[in-house]
């Protein structure tokens, strides 16, 4: 299995790793049984994502897709961030091996989960805006 140079770069030098103590939204997706967990922290001001951090347990692709996803939503409005697709994350990384596509799905979901939490904290039901975030079920990881 071969990763692109971009994937290796984001794995070796992940952007935006860490936590935000006073985050406005935190989302976590995946589970340890499947071998991937991603957690995203958002700081939001006037509907704009001013800061974003992540923590990921997972393979090289999981770390690289988390890193790339955070870069792609930083400075964007919430509605722009919600438009981020796993395909866009993959393309930005010059592709992923087929067995790793589920990592990019997880990255997209992690952003959505953090946005959902942001709305929930503000007393807004996120489901009509963000949609349903699928649970990672046993024996059916990621995809």
């Amino acid at each position, binding site marked *: *299995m071969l990763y692109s140079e971009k994937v*290796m770069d984001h*794995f*070796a030098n*992940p952007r935006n*790793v*860490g936590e935000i103590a006073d985050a406005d939204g935190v989302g*976590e997706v995946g589970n*340890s*049984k*499947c*071998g*991937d*967990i*991603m*957690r995203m922290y958002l700081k939001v001001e006037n509907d704009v994502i001013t800061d974003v951090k*992540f*923590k*990921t*347990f*997972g*393979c*090289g*692709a*999981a*770390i690289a897709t988390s890193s790339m996803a955070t870069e792609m939503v930083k400075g964007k409005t919430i509605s722009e961030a919600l438009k981020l697709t796993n395909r866009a994350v993959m393309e930005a990384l010059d592709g992923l*091996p087929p*067995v*790793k596509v*589920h990592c990019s799905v997880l990255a997209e979901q992690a952003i959505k989960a953090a946005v959902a939490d942001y709305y929930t904290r503000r007393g807004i039901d996120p489901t009509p805006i963000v949609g349903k975030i699928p649970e990672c079920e046993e024996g059916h*990881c*990621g995809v």
Partner: protein
Amino acid sequence: MKRVIYVDNAATTPVSPAVLEAMLPFYKEIYGNPSSIYSVGRKAKAPMEDARTKIARCLNAQANEIYFTSGGSEADNWAIKGAAHLMAQKGKKHLITTAFEHHAVLHTMQALEKEGFLVTYLPVHENGIVRPEELESAIRSDTALVSIMYANNEIGTIQPIPELAEICRKHGVLFHTDAVQAVGNVPIDVKAQQIDMLSLSGHKLHAPKGVGALYIRQGLVLPNLIDGGAQERNRRAGTENVAGIVGLGVAIEEACAGMEERNRRLCAMRDRLIEGALQIPRSRLNGDRQQRLPGNVSLCFEGIEGESLLLMLDMKGICASSGSACTSGSLDPSHVLLAIGLPHEIAHGSLRISLGSQNTEEEIDQILEELPKVVSYLRSMSPLWDHITKNDRN
């Protein structure tokens, strides 16, 4: 370029200089087909027979009990499919193996299940060792074959082969062992240990890839797996891999001659590595502490995932492997780690370091220097590690 520390010798080994030296003439001057009548062919025959004798000597077999194959996988396929089909003619269609065999055995068993054979998979327990009494109670009147690996490729545990084979002999059941990881590392005597068939592979013991052998006890005639020409006394067709076979002979001779001294050195390095690595919090050794291959260190680190660990180690110039799901391209972690009862989330964080004769104490120092740093770096970005440590505090 940064110096590379190669500690993945259970995956494959570098060809030793003496082996390469011995092989080269068979690519240059002595290129003939060993079945030919003229001298450039004939000259290839005797060195091949010499290699056969060397292998036989190392296993305490007779030369005519050794058959060259394209490697361990072919030897496993031949032994298992051959014995199963042979015994099926007598109405015996039950096979016994273990849950943690190499895929060359497991997938062969699964293919036979599709043909209507019934397979029992013995448990290997937390220490990664088969219990002889469990084998004995699994044997039935229609059991054709028992196939149990000599040493596991992932966790390095050595099975009680003499006891297991004795039980089979007592019950009139054929016994095969995949000794691909054991030959050259563990003393093997097919006669004293009552082994009917044994698979071995060149590239795990400093011979090239693509050559191996199956030992078949005299008197046992398996149906052929590869039909064609009359090579290997009509039992395995195909123009011989002369250079590879010659290399295999030299490699086995080297491995068996130096075994005791090499193992003393390897075990000391292995034990230092295990003790050092287990200083890392929430780490564990997989498989029995004592009954393990001299070069095998199999570990799990909670809260991190094996593939990212391997990639980080690779960036430090350390080549190792993992039973993590991600390295195999599936989503489930290795069947070996699951077979010894590790939960999925722990099995994901596995690391296998397998030492070989070319490794040095300085390399162990460097691994012990880098490994804890890499593990704590990955833990620092792992939400799973947060969960684990939070539960500790509560």
